[in-house]
């Protein structure tokens, strides 16, 4: 066996049968550039990852043409990070990038120019809104946008289908070594659930903050061991757009009517028992379901084991009064939820993979009893569209819709039967986001329809004398008011592909003619 002398002056084998090649020790500092070198000095450790400018961070990451950059959407309509970073990347002359954001909102209009100039070539996102969505719907991009669900994105990242070169993650508080959380600072957004997956899997991670705090910034959501560089900026977002004060309860009689009916459906469905778990969306009606459920829980002394999802002040209130034992929070919708995730021991931040990745060893949507979701359109096969409007223009997000619909024991869709002059229940949805085989009940202001796949639920609702119809009957009721809409003038070009959570393509969106 051949022995060599290493940097510690000891003889060791270079190769050992059954183990393979061995690396000789080369000195304590040789391979760990990120440790402090002034061993023995009495000054406090200064080691930090802060770089002066975003530009330097981008260059240090080695970002090049054709690479993939990622962002999160926890700052929602108040996000400054995506535009800030993309402007600098464009100025550096880098092109043909893939932009993979957990979602995009109407504040991302400036991306239109970056697409026109070839800076951005491809987009992965859960949703699109505003001018960007409008332009893309009219054929702005040559490569279709890939629409994913929250769980689908986590799966794509973890399996390497979506390989992120540099993640630019805005964080509301951060120390100089990269411990970051979302619940403190002027741009607090609560959970950093979507960002955590990027931080774990991107080749390079840049944190961007407007709130540098003392080391160590505990408790942390993003750990220092994942972070390459930190950039401090004046502001990462507009607090007004990030979180509303407290999500206000709707007073709209139609939404309240739907919400109350949905709560009756849940209570009589067989899924309402002590220890049940629930997720409600953030739309007016879905949110109000929480209030009516609260009344029924108090009335019948039922407590929930956990509430999941986008967390609101209503959920926090029920947790603090003991009605909901645990909160699992991938996204915090209002300032009350932000406060709670910082204060409440059992309000736990979860990442998008834990939330909904269908291919990990167990995501929490699988443990969900009841989910209440909204819909732009639903068809007689119970397929749901939450992405394209009745004008064929993209104006929504896939989000956790398909993830929670399949994971839950009972998925309840709430929607008005008619919106403006457009029917919600139709023959074929414009775009399928959630397949009908995973949707159980539709609750509208004109009655309830149960998927024929769930006859036992239908029987229970009938026994409770709820206003049950077939979905065809509801469709006819809508058409009686609106008539049958004209088909949309779609062109040939494909502007978006809709990926189901498992990575297969469930639908596509064509360009809409002007």
């Amino acid at each position: 066996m051949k022995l060599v002398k290493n940097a510690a002056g000891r003889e060791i084998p270079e190769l050992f049968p059954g183990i393979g090649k061995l690396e000789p020790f080369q000195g304590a500092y040789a391979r760990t550039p990120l440790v402090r070198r002034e061993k023995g000095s009495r000054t406090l450790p200064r080691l930090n990852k802060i770089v002066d400018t975003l530009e330097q961070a981008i260059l240090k990451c080695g970002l090049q043409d054709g690479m993939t950059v990622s962002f999160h959407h926890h700052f929602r309509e108040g996000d400054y990070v995506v535009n800030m970073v993309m402007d600098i990347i464009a100025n550096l002359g880098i092109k043909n990038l893939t932009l993979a954001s957990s979602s995009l909102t109407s504040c991302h209009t400036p991306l239109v120019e970056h697409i026109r100039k070839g800076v951005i070539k491809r987009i992965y996102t859960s949703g699109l809104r505003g001018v960007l969505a409008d332009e893309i719907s009219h054929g702005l991009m040559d490569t279709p946008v890939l629409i994913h669900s929250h769980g689908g994105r986590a799966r794509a990242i973890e399996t390497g289908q979506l390989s992120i070169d540099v993640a630019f993650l805005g964080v509301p508080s951060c120390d100089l070594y990269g411990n970051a959380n979302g619940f403190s600072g002027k741009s607090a957004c609560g959970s950093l659930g979507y960002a955590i997956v990027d931080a774990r899997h991107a080749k390079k991670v840049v944190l961007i903050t407007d709130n540098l705090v003392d080391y160590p910034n505990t408790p942390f959501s993003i750990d220092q061991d994942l972070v390459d560089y930190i950039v401090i900026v004046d502001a990462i977002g507009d607090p007004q757009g990030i979180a509303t004060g407290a999500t206000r309860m709707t007073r709209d009689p139609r939404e309240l009517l739907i919400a109350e009916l949905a709560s009756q459906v849940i209570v009589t469905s067989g899924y309402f028992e002590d220890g049940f778990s629930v997720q409600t969306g953030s739309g007016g009606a879905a949110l109000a379901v929480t209030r009516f459920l609260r009344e029924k829980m108090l009335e019948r002394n039922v407590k929930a084991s956990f509430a999941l999802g986008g967390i609101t002040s209503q959920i926090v209130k029920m947790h603090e009064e003991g009605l909901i034992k645990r909160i699992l929070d991938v996204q915090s919708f209002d300032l009350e939820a932000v406060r709670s995730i910082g204060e409440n021991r059992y309000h736990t931040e979860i990442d998008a993979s834990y939330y909904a990745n269908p291919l990990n060893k167990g995501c929490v949507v699988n443990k969900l009893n009841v989910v209440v979701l909204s819909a732009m359109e639903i068809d007689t096969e119970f397929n749901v569209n939450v992405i394209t409007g009745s004008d064929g223009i993209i104006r929504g997000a896939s989000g956790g819709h398909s993830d929670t619909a399949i994971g839950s024991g009972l998925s309840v869709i709430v929607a008005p039967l008619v919106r403006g002059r457009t029917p919600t229940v139709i023959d074929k949805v414009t775009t399928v986001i959630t397949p009908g085989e995973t949707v159980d009940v539709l609750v509208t202001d004109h009655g309830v329809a149960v998927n024929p796949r769930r006859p036992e639920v239908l029987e229970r609702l009938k026994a409770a004398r709820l206003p049950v119809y077939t979905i065809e009957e509801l469709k006819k009721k809508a058409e009686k008011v609106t008539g049958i809409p004209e088909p949309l003038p779609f062109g040939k070009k494909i502007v978006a592909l809709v990926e189901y959570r498992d990575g297969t393509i469930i639908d596509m969106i064509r360009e809409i003619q002007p």
Partner: protein
Amino acid sequence: MKLRRTMLYVPGNSAAMVKDAHIYRPDTVMFDLEDSVSYREKDAARFLVYQTLRTLDYEGVETAVRINGLDTPYGRDDIEAMVRARPNIIRIPKTEKAQDVTDVETEIERVERKIGLPIGTIKLFAAIETPLGVLNAREIACSSNRLLGIALGAEDLVTSLRTSRSKDGIELHYARSQVLYAARIAGINAIDTVYSNVQDEEGFIAEVRLIKQLGFDGKSVIQPNQIKLVHRVYTPTEEEIHKALRVLAAIREAESKGSGVIALDGRMVDKPIVERARWTIELAKASGVVPEEVKL
């Protein structure tokens, strides 16, 4: 027995609300062509309400239309169109004397005859909204066989009285009592005025309790969220239902035995008690706390 606990006002020019106001399950949907419609929209509202009544199904919910008075340029056109649209009820605004009802009835009859509708198909409600109307409540209430009820409208009234609405409603005591007595003499419904502060749920419920205790059959409402609150107040308690069911059972037993005198728990059951028991069960059925199958 038709309940009218809630008569929901729906502005006649709002397509979004007109198209399906019945989903909130008021006892009566009342399309308004009068005060909630500006003069520039009078024709549009009349057209919209006419078309919806002819086209859409209100799923068993009673329909009413508040027309403009005959002293306006719109009243006669409203009647021409609405008799043809065939709501269950036409509501006359600002009634001050029996003749006001008779005048509308004459117009309605003329149209009914013209289009071959059986005379008397369209029923009437009269709103009492002025001091003169309040003092003439009795003659108004007894003025027509078509009349199903009279309704107090307080907003104009309090202004005429040189006061305003208060929380406890002391200023309306006389008018409410007068309208109620007139309705009872005529054997028709008495409906209370709207409560316009839709934000104030507590104040609204207090007022509903008050008018129910006075004896009113129901209330005009302007916001769908108020319907459930009224119905809740009018829902009999479990104890009341239990007692009423026992009264009705005792009658049936007495009838089957051919016995004229009915006793329950050693006390005489007379006609008013029976009537009250029937009323209680009607309300309980409408509130969904007693199944429809229960016999009276």
